[in-house]
C-alpha cells in the first residue's frame, strides 16, 4: 500500500514540525494571556512581522496535513467509514483547514 505509507510519512513529518510549532504556540499563549487579551495587543506583535507570518504559515500547512490524516483511521475504526467517500472527506477537510488557516494568518500577520 504505497499511499498509506506516504500518508504515514507525511503524518510523522508534520508531527515533528508541529512539536516545535506547538511548543512555541503554548509559550506564546501563556505569555500573551497575562493581563487579558485584546485584538490590538495581538496585532501589535504580529502585524507586518515577517517572522510571525512565516511561523504561522508553516504551522497552518503542518496542521492541514496532520489533522486530516489523523482523523482518517478514527473515521474507519469508530464510525465504520471506508472507501472513496472517506478519502474525499479527509481531502476536503485538509483544503478547508488550509484555506481558513491561511486566511487567518493573513488577517493577523499582514
Amino acid at each position, binding site marked *: *500500500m*504505497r499511499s*498509506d*505509507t*506516504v500518508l*504515514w*510519512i507525511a503524518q510523522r513529518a508534520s508531527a515533528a514540525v508541529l512539536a516545535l510549532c506547538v511548543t512555541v504556540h503554548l509559550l506564546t499563549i501563556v505569555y500573551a494571556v497575562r493581563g487579558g487579551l485584546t485584538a490590538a495587543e495581538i496585532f501589535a506583535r504580529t502585524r507586518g512581522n515577517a517572522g510571525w507570518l512565516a511561523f504561522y504559515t508553516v504551522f497552518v500547512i503542518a496542521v492541514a496535513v496532520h489533522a486530516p490524516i489523523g482523523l482518517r*483511521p478514527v473515521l*474507519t*475504526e469508530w464510525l465504520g467509514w471506508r472507501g472513496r467517500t472517506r478519502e474525499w472527506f479527509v481531502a476536503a477537510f485538509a483544503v478547508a483547514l488550509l484555506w481558513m488557516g491561511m486566511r487567518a494568518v493573513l488577517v493577523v500577520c499582514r
Partner: protein
Amino acid sequence: MSGTLRVSVWRGAVAGHLQSYEVPRHPSQTVLDVVTHIQRKIDPTLAYRYACRVGMCGSCAMTVNGVPRWTCRTHVDKVAAAGRLELRPLRNLPIVRDLVTDMRTFFDKWERAQGHFEGAATKTDDFARVAPDSPARQAADAGIECIGCGVCYAACDVVSWNPDYLGPAALNRAWTLVSDVRDTNSVERLRAIAGDAGCHACHTHMSCTERCPKHLSPTASIAGLKRAVAKAALQGKL
C-alpha cells in the same frame, strides 16, 4: 488458603450466558486447575482447551477477569480478588463453544502477512552465516519466540475495531522474517503488511506488549515494520 471460589464461566457461543460454579480453593492453585475441576467434578459439558499445562504451548489462553492470560500460568491468588473469577473465551475470535475459540482467522492473517520463510539456498549450498549479535539478527531474535497463542490478538483494541487488521502476532512474525537476512521475499512481504489493515493501523496502545506471556514486544516489531516500509517506499522499492 482454604475456602471457596465463586467462578462465572461463559457457556454457549455468541448467544450464551455466564454460569456460576463453586470451586474449592487450594494453595498454589492455577486458573487451569479451577476450570479442570469444574469440567471433571461438576459439569462435564464444559468445553475448554489445554495441552502442556506448564506454560509452553499457549493452548489454555482465555479471558480471566477481563484480561487475556494463560490459565496454566495464572495463580488464582493473583487474580481472584474477593474470591471471584470470571472466565470468558479469548476476545476478537469467533466462539466455537464455551471457552473455545475458532483460531482460523488468527492463522489466516499470519499467512496474509506472508509469515513464512522463503529462501534461495539449496542443500548443496554452504550454511548461511548470520552473526547472532548483528542488529538484524537481534531484532529477529527479539520476536522469534512467539508460539501463536493469540493473547496479543485478543488484547488488541485495533483488532476489535477493524476486522481486517492483521494483528500483532502476524505482524511480529513478518518482522522477524523481514529482519532475516536469508529471506528473499522482503519486498512482497512489506507490500503485504503495509496499509490500513497492516502495520500502519497500529496505534501503539501496547496492550499486546503488556499481555504477551513470552514478554515479546509486537509494538517494537511493528515500529520496525513501519520504518522498513517507509524506507522501501522512499527508495522506490514498493
